[in-house]
């Protein structure tokens, strides 16, 4: 089974003001049994893409192909696609069991058969104790588990998740990631997971598509995206921290990840001059982050600051003079005009 999106284009006509281009020629493929994460800032078109695949949004141009069948003009209900909404879309007037089974009932299954299936699925997801409750009595994580159960109960051809962990607290999010992967493996179908969370994208995706302004900037494995971002935009969007981008001579922008920058204090004798590829400057802000800290420095003679991640024990103080440097192999080079990798 597979999902292909070909040259998808979608405009929204605002009542006043200019058009909003939500999808601008998107090509994307999710292969059988693959978890494809679509990541991007808000309003990058990722939710529109998902809704177009589900059939809730029509395309102005392009095709949606599921299992080699063109479903572009097929209504949502006949695409055999499951969708988990950000807010779980539970029905407040029905109990959890009825909520899990509502899709089966909508497709005309008998009440008895549905009840049995609901129990089975609830056992698999370990939510049997929730079956008698009302949605209002569930926590954010429990609500999303119920939503996952609604996907599990059917065998869709494609499974779509629209920021399912956005309303789940941090600790539970970690566990839910694993649960979503488990559901995806047991279904064995392509799953498209939309998120704005970098960490989530990196941790979960077999492949990650980075979207911005209605375009897919790059689609590759998380490791490859991290190691070789294709453009400056990907370099800033993808990764635990945005990449530092420093203008250099010859129409080149030099990129270096904050976690690869090394710091030598100016007083240590390394001198104000950090030598080839390095910068000297003063620290303007320090943010503690547990074992580590995030320092923001302003290199001399520029107004573009530079992020540095370093061990908490080595944390500088605001106002300190520091020199930073990095290994040549940690340096990314982009074209200053086009932003593309050189």
């Amino acid at each position, binding site marked *: 089974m597979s999902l292909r999106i070909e040259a998808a284009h979608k405009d929204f006509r605002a*009542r006043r003001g200019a058009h909003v281009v939500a999808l601008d020629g998107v090509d994307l493929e999710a292969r059988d049994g693959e978890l494809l994460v679509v990541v991007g800032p808000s309003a990058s078109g990722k939710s529109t893409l998902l809704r177009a695949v*589900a*059939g*809730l949004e029509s395309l102005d141009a392009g095709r949606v192909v599921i299992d080699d069948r063109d479903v572009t003009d097929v*209504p*949502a*209900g*006949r*695409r055999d*696609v*499951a*969708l988990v*909404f950000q*807010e779980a*879309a539970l*029905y*407040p*007037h*029905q109990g959890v069991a009825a909520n899990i089974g*509502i*899709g089966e*009932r*909508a*497709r005309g299954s008998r009440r008895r058969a549905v009840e049995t299936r609901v129990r089975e699925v609830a056992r698999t997801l370990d939510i049997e104790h929730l079956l008698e409750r*009302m*949605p*209002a009595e569930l926590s954010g994580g429990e609500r999303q588990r119920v939503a996952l159960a609604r996907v599990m109960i*059917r065998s869709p051809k494609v499974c779509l998740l629209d920021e399912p962990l956005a309303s789940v607290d941090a600790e539970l999010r970690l566990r839910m990631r694993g649960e979503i992967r488990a559901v995806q493996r047991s279904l064995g179908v392509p799953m498209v997971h939309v998120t704005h969370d970098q960490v989530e994208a990196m941790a979960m995706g077999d492949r990650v598509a980075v979207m911005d302004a209605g375009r897919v900037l790059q689609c590759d494995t998380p490791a490859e995206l991290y190691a070789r971002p294709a453009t400056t935009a990907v370099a800033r969007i993808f990764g635990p921290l945005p990449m530092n981008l420093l203008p250099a001579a010859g129409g080149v922008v030099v990129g270096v990840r904050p976690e690869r920058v090394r710091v030598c204090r100016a007083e240590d004798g390394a001198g104000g001059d950090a030598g080839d590829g390095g910068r000297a400057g003063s620290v303007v802000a320090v943010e503690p982050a547990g074992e580590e800290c995030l320092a923001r420095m302003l290199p001399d003679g520029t107004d573009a600051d530079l992020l540095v991640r370093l061990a908490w024990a080595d944390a500088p103080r605001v106002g300190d003079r520091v020199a930073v440097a990095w290994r040549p192999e940690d340096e990314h080079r982009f074209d200053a005009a086009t932003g593309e990798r050189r």
Partner: protein
Amino acid sequence: MRRHPAIAPGIWGVVAAIRRWPLAMPYLLGSLLLVLAPLALAAALAFTDYFGFRAPEFTGVANLARLAGDRTFWDAVGVSALVAVVVVPLRLLLAVGAALLLARRPGFDGRGATTAVGRTSAYLPSVIPDAAWALLWLWILNPLYGPLPALLGVLGVPDPGFLTTPWGARLGLVLVMAFQVGEAFIVALAARTAIPARLHEAIEVEGGSAWFAMTRVTLPLMAPIVLVLAVRDVVVVVQNAFVPALLVTGGGPANATLTAPLLIYRRAFEYGELGYASTLSVTLLVLTGIAAAFPLWLAARLAARQRTRA
């Protein structure tokens, strides 16, 4: 001053409320002077003989004894109940039906000119003053030159005699009261619009039909508010059926459309029996309260069941 919450908690609660919300004072005063005081007065007059010329004379339960044997009153209550049983569901059907038709997905096709015209038309009958509305229907239903009997004649449907036969007149009364549903329509529209779009989209993705979405999602979620509308409509239909009965059918023929409020009006202002009319009024109020209690209770229960976190 020491408080005695055990002795008069209600009074101290009211005092605290008044202190905390001075802005509520105009409303509180208004309901006190315009609703509660006249109600108390009517309740007191219900146990008197009062004709408006001399001071009311206390007669104990004499009025109640007379009420128990008053065939005309109980027949009028029957007419009111009958009209309510037909008109209230009809009005709800029109209001909710119009709301469902005219509340499309926001930003999609719910803002076009057609929707605006439809919404205005649904509300328009409620803008027309009751008396003008009644006179309009007097013309529409007229057996000699009214368009509705003429239309029925053209279609070959026998004319029920809207103003001339007992059942025809009751049908006419139903028609007059069925279409002024503007307020209920707007409330139902708000209730429909408040349902998050994703609940319908989830059904759409699952392959559920439009009928399934309406019967399993839309209507159950609107149910608490529709029940409150039902209560309001029972009150409107029973208490306010006065103008159409007075102006369109005049209670006739043969008292077939003599509704309870019209009878009370005649007792009070044509026969001058203000005391006994008060007895009838208070009785009608109690009966309406009983009729409204069940849907109100059900509405509260349903709303509590589906209450979601904000």
